[in-house]
């Protein structure tokens, strides 16, 4: 049974976002888009999460925080960068405090560009992340068997 793809729990983190993408992420939970019908739950706890959804760029202050949260997530896990700021820094790329997108710190699996990224795009990205999660889970099982 492909359990992990039927119950992907997501952790939403706001890096240095303007909150535009965050509001779009939360809109996915509302009745219009309703991602809970796929079994997706927005949990605030990295230890319970499978998908790490980051909006906004990485700066000096949140770099260790993001790393720590990522470390506390149990495998298998995927990282989804939502919005162009999370992908490569967006319009804040030249700022003195921004290091860049999430890939300056963590291995990003899915990039969802947009400013703000639309709920349909976010859901599309998350669905791709779920498929990736299943692949990683299968790889983990093979590893364990060895």
């Amino acid at each position, binding site marked *: 049974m492909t359990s992990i793809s039927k119950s992907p729990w997501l952790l939403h983190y706001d890096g240095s976002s303007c909150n535009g993408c965050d509001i779009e992420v939360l809109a996915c939970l509302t009745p219009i888009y309703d991602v809970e019908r796929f079994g997706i739950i927005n949990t605030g*706890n*990295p*230890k319970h999460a499978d998908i790490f959804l980051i909006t906004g760029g990485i700066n000096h*202050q*949140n770099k*260790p*925080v*993001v790393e*720590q*949260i990522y*470390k*506390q997530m*149990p495998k298998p896990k995927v990282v989804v960068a939502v919005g162009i700021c999370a992908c490569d820094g967006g319009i804040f790329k030249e700022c003195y405090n921004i290091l860049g997108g999430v890939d300056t710190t963590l291995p990003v699996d899915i990039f969802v560009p947009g400013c703000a990224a639309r709920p349909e795009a976010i859901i599309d990205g998350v669905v791709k992340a779920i498929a990736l999660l299943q692949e990683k889970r299968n790889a983990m099982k093979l590893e364990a068997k060895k």
Partner: protein
Amino acid sequence: MENIAFLIIFPFLAAFILAFMRRQTKLRSVFVFFSCAVVVTAVIYYAVTGLISNQTQSLLRETHELDIAMVIAEIGLMLLIVGYAVKYRKLLVAILSVAQTGLMLWLDFSGKNIVTSAPHILSDKLTIMMCLMIGIVGTLICVYAVGYMKEYHERHSTEFKDRSATFFALLFVFLGAMFGLVFSNNLMWMYFFWEITSLCSFVLIGYTRTEQAMTNAFRALWMNLLGGLAFAIAIVYCALELRTGDIRSFISLGNDTGVVLIPLALLAFAGLTKSAQLPFSRWLLGAMVAPTPTSALLHSATMVKAGVFLLLRLSPLFEGNLVGTMVTTIGGFTFFAASMLAISQSDGKKVLAYSTISNLGLITACAGVGMHEAVWAGILLMLFHGVSKSLMFLSVGAVENSLGSRDIEDMHGLIVKLPGLAFVMITGIAGMFLAPFGMLISKWAALKAFVDSNSMLLVIFLVFGSSTTLFYWTKWLGKLVAVVHHTHRYESKVKMSQWISLLIQAFLMIALCILFPLISTNLVEPFLSEMFHETLPPIISSGNMQIMLMMLFAIVILPIAVRFLTFGKKKKIVMSYMGGANAGDDRHFVDSFGEKSSVYFANWYMEDYFGEKKLLRPSILLSSATILVLMGIIIGGGL
């Protein structure tokens, strides 16, 4: 008969010798161990012969010489107390002591004492149980005290003078007095030993001679003396009006006619003060300044049990009358109020003190109901509480010696800092309120007894009191199991003798839980059948006993079972979640300036609702009013 006399006299002898062993020598420690061994052997011998012979003995009718000795001793006690009272200018204490001794002497010499023909000593199943508790738990505490006092004086070498010779002597005087008390049938003898225990308590509380200690010691003394005065008046009344001077005759008078009500009320009052029921609870709280063995021996396992022992003896007389109502109401109310107050305390010994008062309240309420089932519950509560509470006090004492603090907040993470002591403490706490341990069984029986006797007020007190009890014990438990990473193990300053005592007591507690059906059938049930002239079906069925044994077994093999059940997977340790700002040791986080900030979560004390400032004064007022009104009606009605 000889072994009873031996049990009473030997501890006094040992005390006399110990008083001369002024310095902390190996010889003194060995002598204490030796005396303890002698007492334990004597107690077990007495218990075994008592069980085999299976009869209640009433002994010792002719006591002329002993009575004279007792009179001399009583005068000596009074002079001692008045001496202290004058030195520290406490008038009330002096007045009370003179009043009660004066009454007793007047009765003795005026020739109105016509009750010399009744036996002075009573030995039945209840005395066997009390002796076992005093003898075994009491001596274990004395053994513990040897190691503890050494460490105590090392820590406080500049603050207090080392008077440990007096300390040990008094511990043994106290043991002797307790034996005398539980064996007494004659009321004057019981009163005499009662007074000795009050005096022991006074001197031991004031051991450190600090101002706070002396204030608390005198408070304990006047409250106990007040009870003693009530006792004395009751004895005089019984001698003059009822022509009885011993407990057996008193009980056989029965409560149909109501003639016993006045002395019964006075004796109940004495029991209530000795057992620190509201409004007389402050002395027990103040007694916590004494060194830990005192708190364990006097103020939880034995002396305060003297009060409820008297109430349990008198219980058939409590049924269906106003004195019984007074006793149950005060007991039930104390159970609930004290457990609420315990929630707001963070000092370990204060929590234990309130817990003791609370449990004594429950035993009092059981005795006051005056029916078979309730008294069964009361006796078992007394036994289990004696063992569990002394274990708790001794553990807290050991932790205080090792950590330097007895505050519960400082015991955070004890399972990492002092694992051995933490496990002992966890066992003790679990034994105080969790299924399937003894206290829970007794509480269960008490609940059933209250419902059966239609005492709705008691049911309410018990039901709400149980939940508050659950709260303060479990939060202590929570502090102990916190696994604090990157912390060092403390050096445990616990001596071998202390460990032996602690472990034996923990083992005893668990053994009691498993063996209690045996105790019930062989000791408690026969005693109750005799007292109530009826036999009742077992209150906790054998089916339930088996299930509880299963639970006990499950708890014990839990670690092994869990190991096998699931978690063969490799476990990765990660930091706890602090929003990603965990500084790495689970106790600090990185704040917005990039600095390390510490974070610590204390237990909840809810002082606005359960604090002493909020609850203590109303509780004392309510209980005082209850006693005054009810005693007034009883005495007024009787006269």
